[in-house]
């Protein structure tokens, strides 16, 4: 597949890395030669230097026979214009634009084919903000990702003192049904499926008799309203979150504060005096503090020991690490650090810092969704890019598809890949061995290793039958 990427910033280069590995022909366009040189050195791709919204530059980048245009420059207007040109002048079939401004996002009709002609809109800052919001809503979770438009969630938790610790997986359902009988006010049919277990960073294929041990990282799928109940099985529940402190009032920090401020008590620390002033005008219920997130006196003054979640979200990896380590030492219950460098993420996750979040990982999923072959509705990158969770749509009929009409147990899946849930029309089904697959089902799969992705994609392709 021939793909043009406009913009070689963080989002653009991270996407390029993923796509080159998956075997696409890439051309990256940017204004800065150094960025392009760095990219070309690391990956096998072509680069063009110039203004991304100029037709001549697009032609130079091979727009005439490209299959896809991904406009992810920092400038919304450039991205929108490039998509418009790609449609009008070059007839590129798929056009994806990154839009940062929420003002544009409020008018989806702008992106219709007769206007800006954007097929898919992505908003990385919004993705990261939503991601953080889910982590704050479920403070026990290590990762929470949405499927089926938010109806189904995949949650990663560290097993710790819950009922299931020391029990086999097959008891999960029984126990939850027992709980249901004790608490009739709970909704009927609480069900969940454990998709993967990581023990000492090594994947274990979950079987009925797998016993969960203290410290296991458990990935489970459940309907959104049941997440809390299932989480209780794995972990002694913590207190709810009320106080959140955010260090860094940049794009992500301010969005998160705005998102949280009605439901939580939010304090935001911003270093720049003028920017802090502007933020204090914009955020109505957030207490904006002017200072440094790594300033011990400031943190103590603002009672960091009573903070439930501390998020370090500045642009500077080292600052984020130091601020979150400091906050943890001073008594914050849970600390989250935003870290761009993937090596740092691997170093820190699971140590003093509860969650090391790489924005690239959080935002690559939606992009991959539109790029993958077969009909992918959602793609989420897990465990720092090693694993993936997919929501894929089953097309075709019993003859042309390898899936339709079969039971889950019959399908030959690569080792470790598991189907956890199905969205059938509007119904959420947690699957078992005897569940049948129907046409237009959305399957939610867990893929423990990215190398297996092509095999999985093949399963979903509609073939020409078996003769």
């Amino acid at each position, binding site marked *: 597949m021939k793909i043009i990427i406009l913009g070689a910033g963080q989002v653009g280069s991270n996407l390029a890395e993923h796509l080159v590995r998956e075997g696409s022909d890439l051309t990256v366009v940017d204004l800065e030669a150094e960025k392009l040189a760095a990219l070309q050195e690391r990956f096998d791709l072509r680069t063009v230097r110039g203004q991304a919204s100029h037709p001549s530059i697009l032609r130079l980048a091979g727009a005439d026979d490209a299959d896809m245009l991904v406009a992810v420059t920092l400038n919304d207007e450039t991205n929108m214009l490039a998509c418009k040109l790609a449609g009008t002048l070059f007839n590129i079939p798929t056009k994806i634009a990154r839009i940062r401004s929420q003002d544009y996002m409020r008018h989806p009709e702008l992106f219709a084919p007769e206007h800006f002609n954007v097929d898919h809109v992505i908003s990385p800052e919004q993705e990261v903000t939503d991601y953080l919001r889910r982590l704050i809503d479920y403070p026990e979770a290590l990762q929470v990702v949405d499927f089926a438009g938010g109806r189904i969630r995949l949650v990663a938790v560290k097993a710790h003192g819950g009922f299931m610790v020391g029990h086999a997986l097959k008891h999960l359902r029984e126990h939850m049904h027992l709980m249901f009988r004790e608490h009739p006010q709970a909704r009927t049919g609480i069900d969940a499926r454990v998709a993967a277990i990581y023990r000492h960073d090594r994947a274990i294929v979950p079987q009925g008799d797998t016993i969960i041990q203290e410290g296991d990282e458990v990935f489970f799928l459940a309907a959104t309203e049941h997440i809390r109940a299932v989480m209780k099985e794995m972990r002694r529940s913590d207190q709810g979150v009320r106080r959140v402190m955010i260090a860094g009032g940049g794009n992500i920090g301010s969005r998160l504060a705005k998102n949280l401020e009605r439901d939580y008590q939010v304090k935001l620390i911003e270093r720049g005096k003028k920017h802090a002033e502007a933020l204090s005008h914009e955020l109505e219920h957030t207490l904006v503090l002017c200072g440094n997130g790594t300033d011990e006196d*400031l943190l103590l003054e603002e009672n960091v020991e009573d903070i439930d979640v501390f998020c370090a979200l500045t642009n500077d990896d080292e600052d984020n690490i130091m601020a979150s380590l400091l906050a943890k030492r001073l008594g914050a219950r849970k600390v989250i650090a935003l870290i761009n460098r993937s090596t740092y993420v691997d170093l820190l996750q699971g140590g003093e810092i509860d969650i090391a979040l790489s924005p690239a990982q959080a935002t690559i999923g939606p992009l991959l969704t539109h790029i993958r072959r077969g009909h992918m509705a959602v793609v989420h990158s897990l465990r720092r890019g090693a694993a993936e969770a997919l929501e894929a749509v089953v097309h075709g009929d019993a003859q042309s598809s390898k899936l339709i009409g079969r039971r889950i147990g019959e399908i030959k899946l690569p080792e470790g890949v598991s189907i956890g849930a199905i969205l059938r029309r509007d119904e959420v089904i947690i699957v078992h061995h005897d569940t049948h697959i129907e046409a237009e089902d959305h399957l939610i799969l867990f893929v423990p290793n990215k190398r297996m992705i092509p095999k999985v994609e093949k399963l979903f392709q509609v073939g020409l039958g078996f003769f």
Partner: protein
Amino acid sequence: MPVMRRRVFPILHVLGMIVMVFGLSMLAPLLLAELTRDGAQRAYDLAAPITIGSGLVLWLGGRHWRRELKTRDGILLVVLTWTLLPAFATLPLLLHMPGLGVADAYFEAMSGLTATGATVLSGLDDLPPSINLWRAQLHWLGGLGIIVLVTAVLPLLGVGGRQMFKSETPTPMKDTKLTPRMAETAKGLWLVYVMLTSVCITVLWVLGMSFFDAVVHAFSIMGLGGFSSHDASMGYFDSIPLEIAVAVFALLAGINFATHFAALRGRRWGVYRHDPEIRWYLSFVLLSGLALALLLWQRDVFLDLSDALRYTLFNTISVATTLGFATTDYGQWPFFAGLWLMFLCSFSTSAGSTGGGIKMMRAILLFKQVYRELERLVHPDARIPMRLGREVVPNKIVYAVLAFMFIYVASIVTLSFALSFTGLDVLTSFSAVVGCINNTGPGLGQVGPATTYAVLTDFQAWVCSFAMLLGRLELFTLLVVLTPAFWRR
């Protein structure tokens, strides 16, 4: 004199125009006097030509020095307008009642134009109707603002016009523009004002006033003045429906006219809910009224609870909105009640309304500033903006409000001393100054609702006239003209 030539002459042309417009407004009572032969014809026959003629002389004489008005010209023009027009307004009074004396006549005219409603006259019922109309008409013209009227009618004020508009409109937030052009804003405001007044006249007429009384009282109510055509004020009518109507229209006139304008233009009633002042204004006035009613009932001032509610609510609304009509002598109420009414009238009405006082908006800002300082003690590093509704108020305005408060209090203290120094008792001096500077009208003691300001000596009348002007122009506009810096190059 070079200073005169530099500062004063360039504005004479425009000032002449304003005086002429003001003179033309004398034609209404003149017509009434001629038609009814009420005895004041001769006064108007002289006063109107003198005023219009003076205006013409200024207009023609100032033509030579006219130039684009600057900010300072605008301020001076406002101050000169507001000191000269009352002088012209005294003409009909002096010509008809030569015994009145210049100080008292100027006091009466200033009280009319600033919509204060303090009067030195008694025997109002026997005055010629044209004189009563003239007094009420002064309220009505001055209530929303003469310069605003002139801006609406004559498109001759350039750059300085904007400054004049700001100097005359009573609000701390001077930069909210309703329409792109100043003249359009002025027209819009006057249109709303005229509409509300017409509705008010009709309602009062239907509820039993004579048409003439309805016009006089509607002018008085919408300008939140307080002149009546009867010595007993609203007590003369002794009618509950009329009192309710007066209270409702007084409350309406105490709301920012920009809000009325926005509501009428877009037919969106939601703007009233989003106005940050209205809820405080209404709750302060109405809750105070109810609480005072209960207090007075419990203290046996009124034997009936219904009587207590009727009289207390009406008089509370009337004084708090700086209207100043009375249906009973609240000077006889317990001391606390009278003081509370004086307190209410100093801050209840909204900015941009026709009422006086420091305005509810400034009170809210002051309160929020205090709260902000307290919060700063707890969070020394926090950036805490001040919000009014959803808008953030710039610090510049907060500082201006703090300075305003200081000068307001200082003015009350100084002027009270000036009055008591010349022989008035403390309660009378203090309440007279509060009544005048807030453009309310009646005070307590010797200038209470049952009496008039006739007890004042000439000097005291001048002091009170100054207080009214000070309050109407919101202190700064008048005070800046008294500073040497203003006259320097």
